[in-house]
């Protein structure tokens, strides 16, 4: 019966594993297809093409290189094309390059050596959106040959093995080697000393099964599922369960800048007059010279809308009530200026707002702290200030004015002899919680690296604002010149990777992984998808593009970076409990099986019958079922952990023999104190060893699960305690039951129990003393204790 039950158990486990593998395989395939589908969905659009002088609207999939395509506001570029004609053309490339501000596109020729996509202002990239103006371009590449296509190509492959999966694989290999060696050794020895070959074989196989922690997949899956459920409560959705452990073990987090560290929106940061004194006119004039439509929502140019949002936030929108708008000279890309004429009381004023260099050109004076000064005398200083702010990643608009006579209409010629008043400084601000999140990550041993398509100064500004210490900055073009070895070295000491392409993001992650790091990547754009896929843990946000969300392992439902740290803690707890099982299982199983093998040589009977071994194994596994709910010590989750097979090996080698020693002691007691020396007395012997072995194997869990003093300074989880003690109780009464008799056990004498308690207490204390030697004196257990 027990044999059948044991075999049934094995069969169920094997079948479950096969089913799980099939489901996982299917899921991965499905996911890969879904990613491609999303990409296709993103780019399946109509295009207005001119062929043989005729304008046709065709499916973008039918476009070929050389086609002349026209684009207008709202269009999605149907292919990568070289712009040949443009009129005020602006595109939104945020999801593609990470640039949060609209990018001006022209047909101008560029002289660039090895340009990166975001430098190509005369190119339209497939998938980007035209937000202003119109243009015409000749198609250079289509479909999978476009920049977007190359991203999709890198996604159509299976997920690379995570660091945790690698660890499990190495651990499995170690177990296979150990099990094979023990099985062959035990069988040969038993057969050599004259045991029947079938008994020897069954015994050696039972020992081998006893050595395998077959519950590990279940423990891992239960842990991961529970972790995923806990993380869902803090609005972190785990899409790929296996990534949770790597989430906890992650020691490098690479992140995109726009939309992850920053809000990904244009915000007016400051209305700055030229002098030191505050001047409310800078804001009032910019509200008057504004093209945004203000109703229930603010609609229009992002910068004009940002000015209104700033004014509303600062309760300053009322300041313009005294003014009446008389006329407007609209913005155009040649002038890069917009102007309005307003009337207050009887005076008219012309206000111009636009690109600083265009405004400067129309100014003859500047107002600094209420004093009008000639423009020539201050231009150099103003230009320096403007350049400095621009380099730091701020977008600037300049504001100028002049009194103007009343007339029926105004024209661009009136935009002259202006007085420069100040600047409007726009920014993509860091997220509110970003600074706190960066600090917490640092304290948790997670190194942060910024991978961005923006320029290095912009990225540096964000780092300064978030107080991320910058060790080194590398730009995309420099990275192109580096060999793989140089990349591997430089990624270690670099904090900011600026102006990089999606392919380079991938290289950086691969280099970090090759250096032994567990790498997380956080991004939300199409350009982030390959990196999200390659990283051990791909993190994205709910507002990300579908492709990024599909490629990610974990999606944050709220843009709250602090939930990242909660997730990391959860991952570390799960890893901690998994490793506990591995260490306990391997060391105590190894010890028990080793002593079983030794005993089989000198005893005239088997120290434990195969079915008894398997039953003990089953009972031990049941006791371990609640291990995923166990508490994990605070200090364990402070730093990232890693699978370290060398450590597991040392641990097994050291703690395994403790158990063997007490098994041998039990043999002595059963043989020489209770006289179980003959085959007729084997049931007593086997019962004595079964109970001792089970007690030590299960109870040592409370000692090994922590580096602290068990129970006193580290409490085990209540379910673990309850189930473990229940299993111990069951194992204790088993020899007295019908089932015990069926399994070949015999009742044990009362003296045995007294000796057992003393022996087990000594054993547990000795193991605890062993912990002092192992952790404190030898200082082992740096990474995956």
């Amino acid at each position, binding site marked *: 019966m027990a044999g059948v039950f044991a075999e049934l158990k094995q069969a169920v486990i094997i079948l479950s594993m096969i089913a799980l593998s099939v489901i996982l395989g299917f899921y991965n395939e499905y996911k890969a297809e879904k990613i491609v589908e999303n990409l296709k969905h993103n780019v399946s659009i109509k295009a207005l093409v001119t062929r043989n002088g005729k304008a046709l609207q065709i499916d973008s999939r039918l476009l070929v290189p050389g086609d002349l395509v026209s684009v207008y506001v709202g269009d999605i570029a149907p292919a990568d094309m070289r712009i040949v004609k443009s009129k005020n053309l602006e595109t939104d490339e945020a999801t593609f390059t990470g640039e949060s501000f609209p990018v001006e596109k022209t047909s101008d020729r560029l002289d660039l050596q090895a340009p990166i996509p975001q430098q190509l202002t005369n190119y339209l990239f497939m998938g980007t959106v035209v937000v202003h103006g119109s243009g015409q371009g000749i198609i250079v590449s289509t479909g999978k040959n476009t920049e977007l296509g190359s991203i999709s190509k890198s996604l159509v492959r299976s997920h690379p093995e995570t660091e945790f999966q690698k660890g499990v694989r190495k651990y499995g290999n170690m177990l296979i080697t150990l099990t094979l060696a023990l099985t062959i050794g035990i069988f040969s020895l038993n057969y050599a000393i004259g045991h029947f070959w079938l008994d020897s074989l069954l015994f050696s196989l039972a020992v081998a099964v006893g050595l395998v922690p077959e519950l590990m997949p279940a423990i891992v899956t239960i842990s991961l599922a529970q972790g995923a459920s806990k993380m869902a409560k803090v609005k972190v959705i785990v899409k790929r369960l296996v990534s949770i452990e790597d989430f906890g073990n992650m020691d490098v987090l690479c992140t995109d800048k726009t939309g992850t560290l920053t809000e990904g929106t244009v915000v007016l940061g400051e209305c700055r007059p030229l002098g030191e004194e505050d001047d409310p006119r800078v804001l009032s004039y910019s509200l008057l010279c504004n093209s945004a439509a203000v109703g229930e929502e603010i609609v229009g140019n992002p910068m004009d809308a940002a000015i209104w949002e700033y004014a509303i936030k600062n309760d300053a929108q009322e300041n313009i009530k005294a003014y009446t708008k008389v006329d407007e000279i609209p913005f155009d890309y040649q002038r890069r200026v917009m102007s309005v004429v307003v009337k207050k009381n009887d005076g008219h004023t012309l206000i111009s707002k636009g690109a600083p260099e265009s405004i400067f050109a129309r100014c003859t004076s500047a107002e600094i702290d209420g004093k009008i000064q000639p423009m020539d005398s201050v231009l150099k200083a103003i230009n320096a200030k403007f350049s400095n702010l621009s380099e730091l990643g701020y977008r600037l608009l300049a504001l100028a004015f002049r009194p103007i006579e009343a007339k029926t209409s105004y024209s661009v010629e009136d935009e002259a002899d202006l007085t420069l008043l100040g600047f409007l400084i726009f920014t993509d601000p860091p997220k509110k919680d970003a600074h706190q999140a960066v600090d917490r990550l640092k304290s948790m041993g997670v190194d942060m690296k910024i991978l961005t398509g923006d320029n290095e100064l912009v990225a540096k500004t964000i780092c300064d604002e978030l107080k991320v210490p910058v060790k080194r900055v590398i730009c995309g073009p420099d990275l192109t010149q580096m060999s793989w070895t140089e990349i591997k070295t430089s990624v270690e000491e670099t904090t900011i990777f600026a102006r990089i392409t999606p392919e380079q993001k991938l290289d950086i992650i691969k280099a970090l992984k090759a250096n032994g790091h567990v790498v997380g990547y956080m991004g939300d754009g199409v350009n982030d998808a390959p990196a999200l896929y390659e990283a051990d843990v791909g993190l994205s946000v709910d507002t990300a593009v579908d492709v990024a969300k599909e490629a990610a392992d974990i999606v944050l439902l709220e843009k709250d970076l602090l939930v990242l740290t909660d997730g990391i803690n959860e991952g570390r707890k799960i890893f901690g409990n998994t490793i506990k099982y591995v260490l306990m299982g391997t060391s105590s199983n190894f010890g028990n099986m080793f002593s079983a093998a030794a005993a089989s040589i000198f005893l005239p009977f088997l120290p434990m019958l195969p079915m008894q071994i398997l039953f003990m194994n089953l009972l031990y596994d049941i006791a371990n079922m609640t291990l995923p709910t166990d508490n994990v010590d605070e200090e364990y989750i402070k730093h990232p952990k890693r699978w370290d097979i060398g450590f597991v090996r040392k641990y097994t080698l050291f703690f395994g023999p403790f158990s063997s020693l007490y098994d041998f002691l039990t043999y002595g007691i059963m043989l020489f104190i209770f006289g179980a020396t003959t085959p007729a007395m084997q049931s007593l012997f086997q019962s004595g060893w079964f109970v001792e072995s089970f007690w030590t194997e299960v109870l040592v869990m409370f000692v090994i699960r922590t580096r602290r003093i068990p129970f006193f300074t580290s409490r085990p989880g209540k379910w673990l305690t309850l189930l473990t003690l229940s299993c111990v109780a069951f194992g204790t009464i088993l020899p007295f039951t019908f089932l015990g008799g069926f399994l070949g056990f015999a009742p044990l004498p009362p003296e045995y129990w*007294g000796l057992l308690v003393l022996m087990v207490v000594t054993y547990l204390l000795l193991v605890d003393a062993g912990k002092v030697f192992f952790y404190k004196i030898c200082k082992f257990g740096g990474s995956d204790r």
Partner: protein
Amino acid sequence: MDDVGLRTWWAICISAGSIFLTLVSIYLYADSRKSHRKNVRVHADVASLVKAFVFVWVLLGLLVFYIFSVNLGSLYVFAAGNIIVEAILIAYLFRNRTDRSEQT
């Protein structure tokens, strides 16, 4: 196998287990010193070695005691010896866990 043969085999097995554990401890200690020496100069005098291996001395003491008491076949000797060893181990563990974090 007769009783004497069994006793001999048993003594060999339990001794082999203890000696194996002792050797593993020495190996681990040497291994840890080797890796620490790369960063810090480590002076291993006799006193610190004796202190570091307290657990091994207890282990070897236990081995002798177990072989003796089991061969004697006395439950009382076995029980009394165990209690003494437990007291020693508890004292050792408390001495080695004086820091607030209680980490071993």
